[in-house]
């Protein structure tokens, strides 16, 4: 199995705080990997470095074998790395269909076309409609994104990321804040993603993690605490202690 995404000795410091502490991590092609950890473990900071929003203090990141440590968000995106956001980052005044087409346009270099009306390329529009329908967005194609139900917005987050046809997709808490009734929809969508996309799921919700992930990494205080298959992690007493235990306490 080839490695699609890799970090070597990744460190990120904010002033005196070490948010990411020497993380070395490999993601094989086709992976269904979850990244978990207690609050403040540095999950989002880690993802932000992977996607290029933050520059690491030291260490390097490889995407499909290329060193992308210094690359911009956009360059990584074009190299096949896509992400969703924990807090919705959508185009509130556009429609879902438009949003998806914009992303496809960028992938196909069609966004440089300044003369022909938006949507002229039938093949791209058709692709967008298909993608939207596969994510249960078919009934809201022409609504204003800002007025969509929250669950639909979360789905659109994923749809826009998928439109870039990524090889690696980072899902940052895709079900966060989604009401119970719409949760399954999102889980099904995530479960149905094609095997050609390697997934990293950053998640709080243990149900979702264990239903979905084959392998799991646990981050604690910015450092990689333990890695293993889902079963191994579920049984690992140390993980129970630092993570699940903590959760039990907070629930109790």
């Amino acid at each position: 199995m080839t490695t699609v995404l890799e970090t070597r000795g990744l460190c990120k410091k904010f002033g005196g705080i070490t948010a990411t502490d020497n993380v070395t991590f490999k993601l094989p092609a086709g992976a269904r990997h979850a990244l978990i950890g207690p609050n403040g473990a540095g999950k989002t900071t880690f993802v932000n470095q992977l996607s290029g929003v933050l520059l690491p203090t030291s260490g390097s990141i490889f995407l499909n074998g290329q060193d992308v440590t210094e690359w911009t968000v956009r360059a990584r995106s074009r190299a096949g790395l896509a992400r969703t956001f924990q807090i919705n980052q959508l185009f509130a005044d556009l429609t879902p269909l438009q949003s998806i087409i914009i992303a496809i346009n960028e992938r196909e270099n069609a966004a440089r076309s300044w003369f022909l009306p938006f949507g002229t390329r039938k093949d791209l529009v058709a692709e967008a409609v298909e993608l939207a329908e596969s994510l249960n967005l078919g009934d809201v194609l022409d609504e204003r994104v800002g007025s969509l139900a929250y669950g639909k917005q979360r789905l659109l987050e994923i749809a826009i990321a998928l439109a870039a046809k990524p090889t690696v997709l980072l899902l940052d808490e895709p079900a966060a804040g989604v009401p119970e009734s719409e949760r399954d929809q999102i889980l099904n969508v995530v479960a149905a993603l094609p095997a050609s996309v390697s997934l990293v799921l950053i998640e709080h919700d243990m149900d979702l993690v264990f239903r979905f992930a084959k392998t799991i990494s646990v981050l604690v205080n910015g450092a990689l605490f333990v890695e293993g298959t889902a079963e191994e992690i579920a049984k690992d007493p140390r993980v129970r202690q630092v993570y699940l235990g903590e959760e039990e306490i907070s629930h109790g």
Partner: protein
Amino acid sequence: MSAVTSENLRPIGTPSEQLVAAARWRWFEFLFWGIAILCGLSMFAPMLGFNVPIIPSKMMLMSEILILGLLALSIDLCLGYAGLVTLGQGAFFGIGAYTAGLLAKHGAGVAPLSDPILGLLAAGLVAGFVGFATSFLVLRGSDLTRLMVTLGVALIVEELVNKLKDITGGSDGLQGVMSSPILGIWEFDLFGKTAFWYTLIVVFVCFWFCRRLVNSSYGYSLRAIKGNALRARAIGVPVNARLIQVYTLAAAIAGIAGGLLAQTTQFASPDMVAFHRSADSLLMVIFGGAGYLYGGLIGSVVFRIMQDFLSNITPQYWLFWVGVVLVLLVLFVRNGIIGLLSAAVSRSKGAGK
């Protein structure tokens, strides 16, 4: 909801056709430009021996409104589509005005050089170049930062115009601009008839260009940047490059507007670079409604007519009533004049049902 499929709700045609249809010209657009042309045609009415209510007496004002509208359009391109707020568009307007003015002054008589159309192109190019050179300033920071940086640039340009007396004529303005006939055929006249047609055509061409642009795939990528720059980056939109491009383009269009004013009024003065120029034009866009392309045009039409009307009634205190209108508009309407009109139309439609 689930029973109603999207197909039932949507009008006929494939999704692609529907999207393309959104960019089609509508009747009210024909109406807008049609009325503008009618205003121009009305100048011939007296020759035919009858008078129409629209008389050719306000040609200069109409040209000026169109030019202001073009300047506002350039701001709308930045503000309404790319979400880039600028308070320094007057700088490019002024640079365009001085470029066209200087070319007309020193190129007078030298056939190709003095042609107004060439002058406009030069005005657009020079302003666009300066826009490009300063575009890196607007890439970072909040709205307020952008506002102040662009304003700062404009103030510095204004000061430069004032200081470079030998070239610009300093605070007295650039004198001796003699606009040559357009393409060597149409002479500028005192009634401003040629100026009006010339302005109308140039403004329309620029508008048409912008309209194509904002309705294209490129235009939608700009809207994505306005909507959410973080996400736009994540899907691979070259945000900084696009912002630089659109800012440069807007600068060029503002330059063309400035060039038009210099050519049709045959002089250029520091007023054309001044702060109030930038502020007024931004005001027009907001007044008309940002993000519709027509906002700036309608904003300047309504604003200037209101100003002309009020200052004829009370030359000293018209500002008061303009202020009242602005305050009321903001309090009761969204999206400026266009918002007002759309509210009115949807109400009448609602009543009709």
